[in-house]
């Protein structure tokens, strides 16, 4: 296989002596929280636009109010989703530094869309929420703002998923050269399909739950809308997702899919699908009931959450089997490089220690030490004139000293000489030397 991997950072990984499994579990937990908020963000922002439109067409205030309440969920989940997205990245960037950063660089600058595109989406979603009452009589314009916020949010997974698919399949580092090479591949398409289905599924079940709570707290009308719409979302998205989920482990490169087959992780998506089947049957069973108790809605939420957790664990499994070989290769290459580099560095240090000190009274050594020879030489014009040319043209030592200390412009060439940090005595030594070159001619 054509592996192209950067070296590891030559500093100890600060694991505090904890096993790698600890970081795997930490990574899974923070990822589940992150992705749950992101699912809610995608679903709630979509719902807040759809039910706003329905409210307008049905001329029903209750739908409008339901849509408005969903913007609170958008606000909370966009903030918490972004925040909890940082933690998984922090963990992987300390453990698998080279892989993560290589993937980011390969999809640059498009990856910056998750920053700047996100800012735009945030601002649009705030504009949508906070102008709700002010634009009450301009619904068309208001819905356009909401729709553009939703569309902006929808673009983000495409970019981020491309990066993470590249990161998880390091063998592609050699062949993928830009974001499109990885975005338009079955693995990204399939995982995005799963992502959006999961988002609508999760939002559906959460809508049932919050609807049940609203009914219990007396908001019967809006609560009933949330319950009935939540059921529809859930029953529409979940069966498709049940089919997609068990296929997910097989969309990665053959090396990874094959390796995954020999681990326990391969069973997890099937378990997740079975849990979702139970959840679907549970919701179908109560489909006709207008009102559901929060307790029974919570059961459906719990089933969905466990299935999300299982999928996150599968994802970590993919990471584990995928990285085993390249991590070993990287460690070996890094050790080899650092051994050679440090041997050379120690040799250099010894040479430096044995080298005689620079004699600052010797003009040639002084000129070298002060960097004069970067631009000048004795015989040939380089960036600046040769010293012989200077000696030939200038008769006054004072001018040379002045030029050394303060710089000059347009004397010999258009390239200016910057002022140099050189003392009076040193400038004197250098000027005497330059003048002496004239006599040698």
């Amino acid at each position, binding site marked *: 296989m054509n592996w192209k991997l950067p070296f590891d950072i030559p500093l100890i990984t600060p694991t505090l002596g904890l096993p790698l499994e600890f970081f795997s579990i930490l990574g899974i937990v923070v990822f589940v929280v992150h992705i749950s908020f992101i699912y809610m963000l995608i679903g709630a922002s979509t719902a807040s636009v759809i039910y706003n439109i329905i409210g307008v067409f049905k001329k029903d205030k209750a739908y409008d109010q339901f849509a408005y309440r969903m913007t609170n969920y958008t606000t909370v989940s966009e903030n918490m989703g972004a*925040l909890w997205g940082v933690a998984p990245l922090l963990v992987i960037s300390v453990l698998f530094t080279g892989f993560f950063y290589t993937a980011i660089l390969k999809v640059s*600058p498009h990856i910056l869309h998750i920053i700047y595109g996100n800012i735009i989406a945030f601002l649009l979603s705030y504009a949508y929420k906070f102008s709700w009452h002010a634009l009450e009589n301009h619904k068309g314009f208001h819905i356009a703002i909401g729709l553009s916020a939703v569309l902006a949010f929808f673009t983000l997974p495409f970019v981020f998923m491309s990066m993470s698919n590249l990161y998880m399949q390091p063998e592609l580092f050699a062949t993928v050269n830009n974001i499109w090479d990885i975005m338009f591949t079955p693995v990204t398409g399939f995982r995005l399909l799963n992502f959006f289905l999961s988002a609508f599924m999760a939002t559906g079940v959460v809508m049932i739950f919050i609807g049940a709570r609203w009914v219990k707290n007396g908001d019967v009308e809006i609560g009933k809308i949330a319950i009935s719409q939540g059921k529809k979302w859930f029953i529409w998205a979940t069966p498709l997702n049940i089919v997609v989920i068990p296929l997910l482990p097989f969309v990665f490169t053959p090396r990874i899919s094959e390796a995954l087959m020999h681990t326990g992780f391969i069973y997890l998506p099937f378990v997740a699908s079975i849990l979702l089947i139970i959840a679907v049957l549970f919701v179908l069973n109560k489909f006709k009931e207008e009102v559901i108790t929060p307790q029974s809605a919570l059961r459906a939420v719990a089933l969905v959450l466990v299935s999300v957790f299982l999928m996150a664990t599968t994802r970590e499994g993919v990471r584990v089997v995928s990285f085993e070989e390249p991590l070993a290769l990287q460690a070996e290459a890094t050790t080899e490089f650092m051994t050679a580099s440090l041997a050379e560095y120690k040799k250099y240090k010894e040479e430096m220690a044995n080298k005689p000190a620079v004699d600052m009274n010797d003009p040639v050594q002084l000129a070298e030490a002060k960097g004069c020879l970067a631009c000048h030489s004795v015989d040939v014009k380089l960036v600046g004139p040769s010293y012989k040319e200077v000696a030939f043209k200038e008769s006054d030592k004072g001018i040379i000293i002045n030029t050394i200390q303060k710089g000059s412009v347009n004397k010999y060439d258009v390239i200016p000489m910057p002022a140099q940090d050189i003392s009076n005595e040193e400038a004197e030594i250098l000027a005497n030397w330059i003048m002496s070159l004239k006599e040698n001619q």
Partner: protein
Amino acid sequence: MFDYPIFEMPFIGQRMLMAINAIIHVFVSHGGAVGGSVVLAAMAWWANKKNDMAAYNLTFKVVMVFFIISTSVGALTGIGMWIHANILSPNAIGGLIRVFFWKWFIEWIVFNFEVVLLLLLFMTWKKNQQTEEGRAKTVRIGVYYAISSWLTMVIITAILAFMLTPNFDGQPWVDPTVYPGNVDYNNALFNPTWWPSLAFRTFTSIAFAAALAIMWTWIIATFSKNEEDKEAKARLVKFLAGIMMITVPISAAFGYWYYTEIPAAALAMIPTAVMTRAFEDRFDLMYLMAIGVGGSIIITTIIAYFSPKRMPYLAASLMVAGFLILWGYEERVREFIRKPFLIYNYMYSNGIRTTDVPYLDKVGILKHAVFLDEDKKVVKEDKSNILDVGKSVYQIECRICHTVNGINGLKGLTAGWSHDAIRNRLNNLPGGGTPYMPPFVGTEAEKDALAAYIKSLNVKGVIK
């Protein structure tokens, strides 16, 4: 840097790409979040204590502006700093995360408190404002929000200070001759510029946030249809100006302390950092500028305090602009004086570790450049690929600060230079008036190739 894929940002270059994000983030995080949280909590506390409901309601409108900007632009450009740093120099940010991982993790936990408290403050304000108890609760949330905001700055300031002054009492934070390097975490954290820069940033943030709050109070009240807002404006502006009168002198004092802790080699870079290369000899202009901008801030503050009603809008926005200029410069200077290093004495600006230099000088910078094509790594006998090799060297060593034709473009910088002049200049990059440049790293053949490539930017075809 040589072992990562090459990404070149066209025209503006990677440095400017990072700078844009960094400047936005510094303004919003310091003015909006860290200083803003303190100022907003103080406004709520003061209005509630004086039982001034008009001022309390006006404060909420200011909170809303700060909420929108902090959570969107502020938080996301904060994550952006990391992603941009990754694009700029993966080895540098990778190293920093190895050193500061747990501190960053703690910062993230504190950041959770900050975001949740800000959401709570904003989303429960209206519900809580009816009763005395509710308002006291809002003030309490504001105070906790301010504390958690400040704590997030504590850690990140340590990391920035570490990049400038990684060593402490002559004890190295890591032994450069050992692999893998065993980091002395406490030494890295308690570096000499941490406390002064933290103190300086804290009080400047509060002063800046107060200036921002004055501007927004002014805008909101002036365009409000509510008479109460207009009437509360002067009282709030006076209170905010009072905050500035306390914090501006304190931050100046801490700024001086910070200045005294900066190493001498870095101090020598200040004239170039402030005035840019073209004006580095006119350092006197900097004093004039600092006096002008600082003076106008102080005068506006005094007007706002003693005559808040007559405070013109132009003055309020000028004050904010003054802060933006001063702060933008402070950040530029801090980033610049670290040159030619990214982490002082450990890693050069272009991501090459100082300890790797002797080895890379021997085997070549391109030998381990895994992401480059093989035929662009070594110059062939007939020299047919010399420009490709030279371009590879440029991409690895120079591109982090230079572009070909855009900002700091090599084409313009070497216009009219002979091949010999370029070749000779590469022998001593930190000399010749550019002490902020790292040395050339690589073999003599690679130096030849780079010189040929740079020459080819102005003169088509290969010379020599």
